[in-house]
């Protein structure tokens, strides 16, 4: 809110004053620059190995999905046997869906008849 009160001309004038003031510049801006320049020998060894250890490329969608879905594949259904009522394959400990629907149909027709 306060920034809006200043006109653009005023802010430019303040910037010019800041640049022209040598004491402010030398203390805040150039001092760190001179520090880094004094120890380039120490940094250059680890510069390529550690400090820039960042992925070179974005991981593709395919790569990401393969990684995240690893070990989560659907399991084979092995608990199967044959239905004693109709001889078709059904899951163990579960009623045969064909027989169940057949019997329900019979009940429905018996009710309407």
């Amino acid at each position: 809110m306060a920034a809006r009160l200043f006109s653009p001309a005023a802010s430019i004038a303040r910037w010019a004053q800041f640049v022209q003031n040598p004491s402010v510049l030398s203390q805040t801006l150039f001092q760190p620059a001179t520090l880094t320049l004094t120890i380039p020998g120490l940094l250059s060894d680890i510069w390529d190995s550690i400090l820039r250890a960042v992925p070179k490329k974005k991981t593709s969608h395919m790569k990401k999905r393969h990684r995240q879905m690893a070990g989560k594949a659907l399991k084979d259904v092995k608990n199967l046997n044959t239905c004693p009522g109709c001889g078709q394959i059904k899951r163990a400990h579960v009623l045969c869906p064909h027989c169940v629907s057949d019997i329900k149909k019979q009940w429905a027709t018996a009710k309407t008849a």
Partner: protein
Amino acid sequence: MAGGAAKYRHLSRKSSHRQALLRNLVTSLFKHESITTTWAKAKEAQRLAEKLITLGKKNTEASRRRALETFYTPHDIVPKLFGPLRERYAERPGGYTRVLRVEPKKDDQAPSAILELVDGPKDMRFNMTARAVARQRSKGFETLNELTVTNVRKVTQFRKDGVEQLEQAIQQLGLEEQPKKPAFRKVKAEENEGDVRA
């Protein structure tokens, strides 16, 4: 769950919601004799249904009041509970209902089950056993396998004229099956002889 093992399934509902659900389920169960719901709901409704039939068998004024306040349509169901159902289960020492797993019905693939009143007109195990025996006979085997024998016993033990009724159901199936059954299915069925279990 914190505080030890849960004594009952909470079914992801608060108490009042759960009570309402179970009352709805048992009302439907006693109305239709058989309901299909998720397995967990079926098991919880089974507890309540068994208790209600016990009330029916007690047949006192107090038990009648308890039944009246449980059902949502008591005036249709309480006479049935204290009449035909009480007579049907007079000899049976508990185990008036049955939960049978079926393939998932809901689109979230939750395990489903049929909850049914034993020895009623919609007894799924009775019908399945009749089918199993009919098929066994059509193939020319006189001896049944272990599990079918157990099921025959379960189905006929307390049913009034159980053996005769089962025989009648088997005969009826034999009459119906012959024109309906295509020839190729018989060949396929003979290939799959092996572990036959219900």
